């Protein structure tokens, strides 16, 4: 019997396990399906990680190494090459690996830290033939950065998420010609800094409100058709451009990888596609916590580490003292706020400050994030340069929460002051 099992040895799992150890939990097991710890950071060789956590811009492997070293210095047990098949609500974890075979582990608490995966061509239904040369951006990143294979010579990138932007630069540096980065939305979901250093630095055009409407090629991609779209995202006839290319990368979004969460009977929030969680990142199933990209897709690993530390500490608190009373406020959203994490805030959380992560649905120069109960406004935060691609954090002091007897909901909304 373990005190804590952490599923996933990427940045979230490492930070959660280490934080729990620091809080005195001793029997901790990390289960990782890859051959090494570090998760997707291992293939993210570009720099920019850790500015908030360490005050310097590290590459992905360096950032992972910092946390791996912290974990190595503890007595945390790690099993790599281990695939978790099932988790149940009683915190039994069923897994397989080449040395132990099929095994069942049990724990007082479980942290879900499985990360996310990429949306594929099937998810966005691009018409055309099915030749080789269509890759998700992260797959191409793995081929290039881990395995050392070049994926193509003339490339079009569909989607302007961060991985697509990073790959535009990576491919260009390695000698490929990136013809365009095509984005169906009128605004990129990537970080502004990545648009500047990955596209503008290399003169790669960003075609906003455009999409790929046909993939051509028999054995290998020979070209793609790109069309402008209208405000309903429907292709506009007559705007077809043909790109002669051998490769199409898809950077069309990430989905939290929640198969295990569902098997454990935990409900998912359709907005985040991750579990509903309380302010301490505990799911609706007692003793099972979630953090990192399996809970909601973050734009910076620094936020993943921050949230995971928090979940690890909360798991430690749960192991030591048991469950806190579940009476809580439900957090709703409106007016341009697309989601919040957490979705539930306990009335007696035992915390002074509750960190609320949220996203907005459009670009706004200046706006206020307003937290209100049905009776009155309780907090207002002035924010600048809001964008869908940039997660917003607000700290809600728990003394501001409505006193007992009032309503059980809190609403988070955006009030635009300068569009």
């Amino acid at each position, binding site marked *: 019997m373990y005190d804590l099992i952490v599923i996933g040895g990427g940045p979230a799992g490492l930070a959660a396990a280490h934080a729990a150890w620091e809080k005195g939990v001793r029997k901790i097991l990390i289960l990782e399906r890859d051959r090494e710890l570090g998760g997707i950071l291992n293939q993210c060789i570009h720099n920019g990680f850790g500015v908030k956590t360490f005050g310097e*811009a590290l590459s992905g*492997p360096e950032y992972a190494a910092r946390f791996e070293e912290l974990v190595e210095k503890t007595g945390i047990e790690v099993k790599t090459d281990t695939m978790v098949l099932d988790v149940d609500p009683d915190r039994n974890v069923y897994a397989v690996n080449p040395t132990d075979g099929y095994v069942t582990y049990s724990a007082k608490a479980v942290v879900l830290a499985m990360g996310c995966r990429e949306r594929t061509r099937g998810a966005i239904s691009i018409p055309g033939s099915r030749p080789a040369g269509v890759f998700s951006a992260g797959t191409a990143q793995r081929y290039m950065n881990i395995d050392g294979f070049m994926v193509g010579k003339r490339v079009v990138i569909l989607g302007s998420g961060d991985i697509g932007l990073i790959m535009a630069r990576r491919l260009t540096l390695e000698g490929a010609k990136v013809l365009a980065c095509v984005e169906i939305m009128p605004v990129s979901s990537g970080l502004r800094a990545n648009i500047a250093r990955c596209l503008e630095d290399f003169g790669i055009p960003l075609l906003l409100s455009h999409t790929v409407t046909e993939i051509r090629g028999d054995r290998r991609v020979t070209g793609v058709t790109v069309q402008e779209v209208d405000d309903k995202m429907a292709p506009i006839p007559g705007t077809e451009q043909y790109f002669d290319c051998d490769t199409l990368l898809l950077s069309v979004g990430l989905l939290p990888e929640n198969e295990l969460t569902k098997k454990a009977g935990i409900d998912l929030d359709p907005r985040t596609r991750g579990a509903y969680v309380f302010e301490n990142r505990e799911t609706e199933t007692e003793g099972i916590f979630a953090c990192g990209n399996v809970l909601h897709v973050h734009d910076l690993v620094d936020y993943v580490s921050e949230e995971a530390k928090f979940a690890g500490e909360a798991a430690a608190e749960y192991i030591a003292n048991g469950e806190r009373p579940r009476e809580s406020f439900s957090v709703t959203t409106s007016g341009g706020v697309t989601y919040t994490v957490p979705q539930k805030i306990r009335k007696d959380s035992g915390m002074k400050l509750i960190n609320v992560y949220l996203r907005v649905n459009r670009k706004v120069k200046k706006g206020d994030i307003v937290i209100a109960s049905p009776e009155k406004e309780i907090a207002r935060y002035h924010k600048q340069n809001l964008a869908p691609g940039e997660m917003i954090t607000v700290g809600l002091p728990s003394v501001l929460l409505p006193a007992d007897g009032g309503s059980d909901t809190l609403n988070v909304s955006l009030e635009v002051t300068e569009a």
Partner: protein
Amino acid sequence: MRNMTCLECPMGCQLSIDEQTLEVTGNNCPKGEAFARAEITNPVRILTTTAVIESETESMLPVRTKDPIPKGSMDAAMKAIKNVRVKAPVEVGDIIVEDLVGTGVPLIATKRVLK
């Protein structure tokens, strides 16, 4: 006036610099001011890429320049790194090339490869 996105941290502040007076606006920290001045005189970037490694477990070793190098040196640097052959073991921070294409900046490993 020239407008640019600050690359010093993920915030991505929108900077403007007056090319005559070198006055910078839109920055939220002193790093942004220095960035904008460098950007119109000698723009520099950290280069991150991979080098071939002889190892039992890895094919490629992730590497980066220890400090930013001029944008104009990027192509030459990439060509030079293509000819590099690293042998395991390597630690994070080990110097792979002392002075990368005359920039005075070393190329360092960003991953530990034990064997």
